[in-house]
């Protein structure tokens, strides 16, 4: 039982570390501010989620595990809001019309 739990922890935390790696590589390689924002928020949020998932079985109690999930939920909310605020600031609400692709009316 405890071995199976440890394997879950190791797999999840390793996967989390991989997404932190991907986020940083994206940050270094992506060409402009807005694309870098994608790399940062999407990859790192998933990385944090997987690290939390790996730590939950090690928390020792149901409450400890739920507390970890609370931290992740708050971080996810913060990420969703901050990425929008920074994106709106960086794009200056303009956007190049030539690059726009209008959707059909609903």
């Amino acid at each position, binding site marked *: 039982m405890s071995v199976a739990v440890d394997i879950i922890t190791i797999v999840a935390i390793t996967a989390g570390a991989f997404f932190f790696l991907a986020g940083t590589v994206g940050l270094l390689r992506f060409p402009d501010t807005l694309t870098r924002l994608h790399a940062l928020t999407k990859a790192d949020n*998933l990385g944090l989620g997987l690290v939390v998932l790996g730590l939950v079985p090690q928390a020792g109690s149901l409450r400890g595990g739920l507390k970890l999930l609370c931290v992740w939920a708050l971080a996810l909310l913060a990420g969703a809001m901050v990425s929008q605020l920074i994106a709106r600031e960086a794009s200056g609400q303009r956007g190049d019309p030539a690059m726009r692709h209008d959707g059909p009316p609903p």
Partner: protein
Amino acid sequence: MSNPSDALGRLMAHALARAVALLILWLVLAGSDLADLPAGIVAVLAATVTSLRLLPVGPSRLSPVLLGPLALRFLYQSVAAGIDVAWRALDPRLPLRPGFVVYSVCFPLGSARNAFAALTSLLPGTVPAGDEGSRLVYHCLDVDQPVVSQLAAEEAALRHAIRHD
């Protein structure tokens, strides 16, 4: 809805639902020791009153029954988003076609639309980057993706979970 006692009943129901959610948060943080409960009650009361003042009870709300599937859906999407950005970052050819996509959203300005924007910021390759009247401007990592149809599907899912009293 015109009946004042109905309105009061709805207010009480909303207040109770928020208080229960905040109480659960307190119990997760502080534990269920009886000695801690007085502080917890003060905290939950203060937070509930603040919540009702900041976000007054509106005519619509998220259905608690459908909240679970909705949360699972967006959890799945945020995993897909992480994988999507990871392979784009690690691929030597750097497959990006960044650009803006304008999406006409049906939700009126307000909480529902903000929730939609927040949830779609977790989708693979999109982040809301501005408003144009009734339309949201999305910045996309790859404009060749079927972004608009994907957003429409998410909008339908969120609409499905909103109940009008």
